[in-house]
């Protein structure tokens, strides 16, 4: 029996009709045509599908679309400023060459942004631990760790600047 849900996606309201077993990732990719969120596995292991649900990172391949009913979803498409300016974490990935093929990247970036909420002063070791659920086959993680370190720093500086305004 299809169900109707309403949610906010990247700041905009969306009304969808989904099956009770429709995965959030399918709702995002297929119903909303937001294809930046990727699917890299079928066992909830790779993190290519990470999005934020009410500001908290979740694997959208293991979340039902109906669980997002009435809530806020942020995908990689919603991270940059409306004028296209990259979010500090996105900018840090570019600066430190934290991506190669780009397939794991949206999930990596969304996970990394959530780390700022949980542990804004994470050490490289803590960053590696936090990213355990995100597999990257290309980069060897070295530059991802550098990028996240610098992205966390930039987010703090940005937040401080905002607070001062």
């Amino acid at each position, binding site marked *: 029996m299809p169900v109707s849900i309403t949610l906010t996606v990247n700041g905009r309201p969306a009304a969808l009709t989904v099956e009770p077993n429709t995965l959030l990732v399918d709702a995002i990719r297929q119903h909303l045509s937001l294809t930046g969120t990727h699917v890299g596995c*079928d066992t909830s292991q790779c993190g290519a599908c990470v999005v934020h649900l009410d500001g908290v990172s979740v694997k959208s391949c293991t979340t039902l679309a109906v669980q997002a009913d009435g809530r806020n979803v942020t995908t990689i498409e919603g991270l940059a400023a409306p004028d296209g300016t990259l979010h500090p974490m996105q900018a840090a990935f570019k600066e430190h*060459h934290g991506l190669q*093929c780009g397939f794991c990247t949206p999930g990596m970036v969304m996970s990394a942004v959530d780390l700022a909420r949980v542990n804004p002063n994470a050490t490289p070791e803590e960053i590696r631990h936090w990213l355990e659920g995100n597999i990257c086959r290309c980069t060897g993680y070295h530059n991802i760790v550098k990028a996240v370190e610098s992205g966390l720093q930039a987010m703090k500086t940005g937040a401080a600047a905002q607070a001062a305004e």
Partner: protein
Amino acid sequence: MSKSTGIGASVKRVEDYRFLTGRGRYTDDMTRPGQCHAYIVRSPHAHARILSIDTAATLAAPGVLTVLTGADMVADNIGSLPCGWLIHSRDGTPMKEPKHLPIAADKVRHVGDQVAVVIAETLQQAKDAAELLDIDYEELPAVVSPGSVETAGTAVHDEAPDNVCYDWIWGDKDKTDAAFAQAAHVTTLDLVNTRLVPNAMEPRAAVGEYDPGMDEYTLTTTSQNPQLIRLLLCGFTMGLPEHKVRVVAPDVGGGFGSKIYHYAEEVIVVYAARRLKRPVKWTAERSESFLSDAHGRDHLTHVELAMDPDGLFLGMRVKTTANMGAYLSTFSSCIPTILYATLLSGQYKTPAIHAEVKAVFTNTVPVDAYRGAGRPEACYLIERIVDVAARELGIDRAELRRRNFIPPEMMPYDTPVGLQYDSGNFARNLEDALALIDYDGFPARRAESATRGKRRGIGFASYIEACGIAPSNVAGALGARAGLYDSAEVRFHPTGSVSVMVGVHSHGQGHETTFAQIVSERLGVPMEKIEIVHGDSAKTPFGMGTYGSRSLAVGGMAMMKAIDKVIAKSKKIAAHLLEASAEDIEQDGGVFRVAGTDRSVDIAAIAGAAYVPHNYPLDELEPGLDEQAFYDPKNFTFPNGTQICEVEVDPETGVVKIVRFAAVDDFGRVINPMIVEGQVHGGLVQGIGQALLEHAIYDEDSGQLLTGSFMDYAMPRADDVPDFEVKTNEVLCTTNALGVKGCGEAGTIGGAACVMNAVCDALDIGHMDMPASPERVWRVLRDSRPAMAAE
């Protein structure tokens, strides 16, 4: 001062913006009007005869459009998936090349083999309907282990009753035997190069489209080489004229070799699109990738090294059984031969080498090139046996390598296994890596580890690889059924921006940046006015794609040739505009000047004149500024280097932790150091993955893949691997004008050997097979405990 643009600058990547903002366009992201979905029914058996397939219930299910079987394909004359390289056995007979139909027609030969395809309006409908398919199998005994195929009592293919595909030899046997007869010491080693699953993060996908009005086909596919796929699709499997077929490989999420091959699913979606006259999409689920992407490695090897009293290498013998899996994948036959035995000299002066390679069929997923392809296998056995030899002879491992290195003054150097190394300074790489890791400080670090109850070890790998297989006539003589040149077209637009169409493909390597850096420097055009176009057979000239670290050494050189043609024509146009003779025009980036004067014109103005030829020597020159070139390399290139790794083993748990890692590489000229370092990091982690974590395991009896998901197949994760110290030593390649050697595979070539050498050092043993997982390490320690106690 480091440059901020052009060749040698760490320019930030131009492709990053789309990937970082979720605007990458991967195959599965595309939705075509009227698109339907293919679900592939795969064999649950390793080996079985298909007795019957009853499709009635499936066809009647909601949303189902059709069900396709091997019989349909046979009836429509769909051809076998071809193998691109012919190897001959030692008796002169050609390799056994059994048919490989995109959907099995008589027998299934591995778990995951395609049996039927259900196509429906939605993927869920196709999956549900597939459950209703009634397939009657007669199960047959399976051949799983490559070591026992001849006595398995069952044949994967009737054409190869003993399951041997070929039995190939390389090198000088008599000379090698003579070397062994004189040896003061012979070290022997048996080792397994484990089977791996490449696991690019983007699962394979394909969309087939057919336009009945124009009788035209489009295949969008996750490929490293769309032009090659079009050739194979047209010439072999579908039998179509190439001018009616467009193959597009858009953004591709990693390849590592696994996306080189012409896969069954590409044929299936094109064939189905024609039958249904609708776009047909297929995307692999990860568990399906495990059962249908070509795997890598899987060698059993016996190696012997003969030495004189000082440890100088006199000769090497190698006997390898290489598992091909159930069918010959596109390049499978050349991996354990031409890309393996030719590298057995490594960085050493070993004067006599002989190799015997037996390739066998088993009821497992086909095996083909995986990052490094044959060269990591060669490096692993060489660098392992050098370590074992050093241990037996009581010589320091760095010193034994030093004694045997080919010195720079012997370049160009002809190896006894058929290659000519053009350049390299192997000893310098080793010394620099020793300095980077602080080799002299190792004993103190080892002692410190011991105080914490940990066992510390250090290991090296001094690797060399051969990239950009070449030249085409030599490759042809060695069995290649295709040429191995590449192509590029440099097209100026009237207002001075440039499109460069290349035959190579980028799936993470950053060509859109590095290739543009070269164009920018050579033609004086700012980066933002340059676009590198790849991955679409309708846009680019015919090229062979990206694998074997060939993009820059072959594709980049084709682009250089095209640039040279642009410069030559631009000089003529400049001469006309400046009323001088073409011989007097000097070019400096984008400025064309009459020598010795201040009269000049820039390339944008030249392009404008070429496309708006109002004032133009039309009787001498054609309008336009658009040049194409094909380039066939003179020789392979030979990236080389030394990697050093330090591990700490916890004897209580068997856990191996990599604590330091240094790599010094000679890639020839480096275009973008930032990108090169990234390639090294990524390659190293794939090597580390093999050494410590990854292993594709089949059940010996049932032929089921036991490690068929990320739950059971251990992929390296961020907290499994260390930071890296990397450095490059540029020794320019002498056989191409750019001086480049290639960097895509280097990390993986030496990585596994380097880590295993460190693990064996830490455990104080001669050898253990990969992966050095906690359980296996713990067992090794337990088994050696009585000896330790006796110390």
